[in-house]
């Protein structure tokens, strides 16, 4: 059980380009699974390598349970990293690969052998000890890489895009396996991914990074329900944005006024955000406006409508049966459920989010 604290962590590779990781503050809870999420090149892997001790930070500090570990060598940190491309040592057998960490710790051979067996059972590949890495499939190599890291009982387990090289089916299996092992062993785990679904499914808490800067560090559902910026909302799947003016819990927009009790910002210029799934078609009453159906798609499990309201175009995702109720060109009432509206600051898209003072 180890709590990892990053404070002001910065990495600059090249003075001419912006920092790869920029003043990152993060409190990674002991025994929990934390995801570092972001598009490629956002500094997630760099952050992970700094925690593992494989890269030296330009500035800032990393501490385990409150004690700085910057001066501790990577082999003594107990923070084991599993790389994206597995990196099983090709000239060693599977048993030697898994036992590598114990051999380095001068554990005797008998004990290594029995613990390797335990690990192979844990990752559900018993009987593989004498094979060579190139005889294994990608998914199997991934499990061996995981076993090789777990056998040394690390304080912190660092998984770098561990699942991105696997096909969808294997990925689901590995997610379950990782989650199970992590919960059983209670290892503080940091998981790097660019896939927001994976982060949400696996992690207890998600840290979203754009361009080396922390955007939001929250429970997974918060990224859908209470994102801090339009960028974050967009990264977590399509959302309708309607700009306007926010005053006393009411959002005044070009297409009408909407009651919106949930807001990130105070009175002033703001943006109303509502997920396509939260738009109700054919329902009138409070928070309802009139719109025209532009087009629709039937997708089996759901239906997708493009609706024009005044000069704004929005998207609505509904139950599949609704395609029978509305035809293209129909004028229908469109309702925004007040509880599902989230009011955001008026940052234009692509503009970096303001630094969060509470951070």
């Amino acid at each position, binding site marked *: 059980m180890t709590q990892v604290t990053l404070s002001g962590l910065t990495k600059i590779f090249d003075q001419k380009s912006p920092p790869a990781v920029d003043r990152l503050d993060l409190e990674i809870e002991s025994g929990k699974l934390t995801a570092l999420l972001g598009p490629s090149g956002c500094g997630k892997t760099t952050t992970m*390598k700094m925690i*593992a*001790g*494989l890269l030296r930070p330009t500035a800032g500090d990393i501490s385990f349970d409150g004690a700085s570990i910057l001066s501790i*060598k*990577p*082999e*003594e940190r107990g*923070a*084991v*990293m599993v*790389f994206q*491309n597995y*990196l099983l*040592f*090709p*000239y060693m057998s599977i048993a030697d690969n898994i036992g*590598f*960490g114990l051999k*380095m*710790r001068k554990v005797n051979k008998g004990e290594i052998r029995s613990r390797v067996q335990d690990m192979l059972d844990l990752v559900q590949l018993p009987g593989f000890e004498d094979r060579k890495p190139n005889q294994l499939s990608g998914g199997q190599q991934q499990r061996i890489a995981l076993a*090789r*890291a777990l056998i*040394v009982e690390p304080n912190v387990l*660092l998984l770098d895009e561990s699942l991105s090289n696997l096909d969808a089916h294997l990925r689901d299996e590995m997610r379950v396996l990782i989650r199970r092992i992590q919960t059983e062993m209670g290892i503080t785990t940091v998981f790097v991914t660019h896939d927001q679904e994976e982060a949400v499914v696996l992690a207890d808490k998600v840290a979203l990074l754009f361009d080396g800067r922390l955007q939001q560090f929250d429970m997974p559902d918060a990224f859908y329900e209470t994102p801090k910026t339009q960028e974050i909302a967009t990264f977590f799947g399509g959302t309708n944005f309607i700009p306007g003016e926010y005053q006393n819990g009411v959002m005044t927009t070009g297409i009408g006024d909407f009651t919106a009790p949930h807001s990130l910002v105070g009175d002033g210029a703001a943006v109303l955000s509502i997920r396509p799934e939260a738009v109700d078609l054919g329902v009138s009453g409070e928070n309802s406006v009139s719109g025209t159906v532009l087009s629709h798609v039937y997708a089996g499990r759901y239906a997708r409508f493009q609706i024009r309201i005044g000069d704004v175009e929005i998207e609505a995702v509904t139950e599949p049966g609704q395609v029978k109720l509305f035809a293209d060109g129909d004028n229908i009432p469109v309702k925004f459920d007040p509880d599902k509206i989230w009011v955001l600051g008026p940052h234009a898209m692509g503009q970096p989010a303001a630094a969060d003072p509470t951070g």
Partner: protein
Amino acid sequence: MPAGRALGLYNFAGKRIVEIMILAPIIVPGLAVVLGIDTMFIRYGLSGNIIGVSLVHLVPTLPYMTLVMSGVYANYDVDYELQARSLGAGRWATQRYVTLPAVFPGVVVGALFTFLISWSQYVLTLLIGNGQVETLPILLFNFARSEPAIAGALSVVFVLPGILVLLLSSKYLSGDSAAVGGIGNI
């Protein structure tokens, strides 16, 4: 070997210039090089003994070793070393258990090349060794004038290592034992 690693793994300013400098001994005629070196060696007492001859043999062989190793490292993933460190291996253990096995075929091939080139050096040995350090080529040359029979026998001995090296290195170059990242491709 470290020079090969630097050239194969990293891109840095002036890399081309360093490459050319390393290759220079192959491009410049050996005689021109050795005449300059000889005056220095005489001054430092390295002329006419085995140490001086060994040193001067580095001149034509180093470029080959460096080139072979840079080819090996070009196909090598340093992350293997980081992985080993992360799993608890110190610097030396990482070299021993990870780096060396991975580049070993390259080291063997480079060593064989080096041996062959050194084996067939005549001018360098003669000039720096002052005729006092007798290597096989020098012996062969001496006999070639007086005793053709012995010269013939010696030339068979002289050819043997070349054939052996060819057989050995073809095994390593075939890629069967290429450990990390297809060293057979160099």
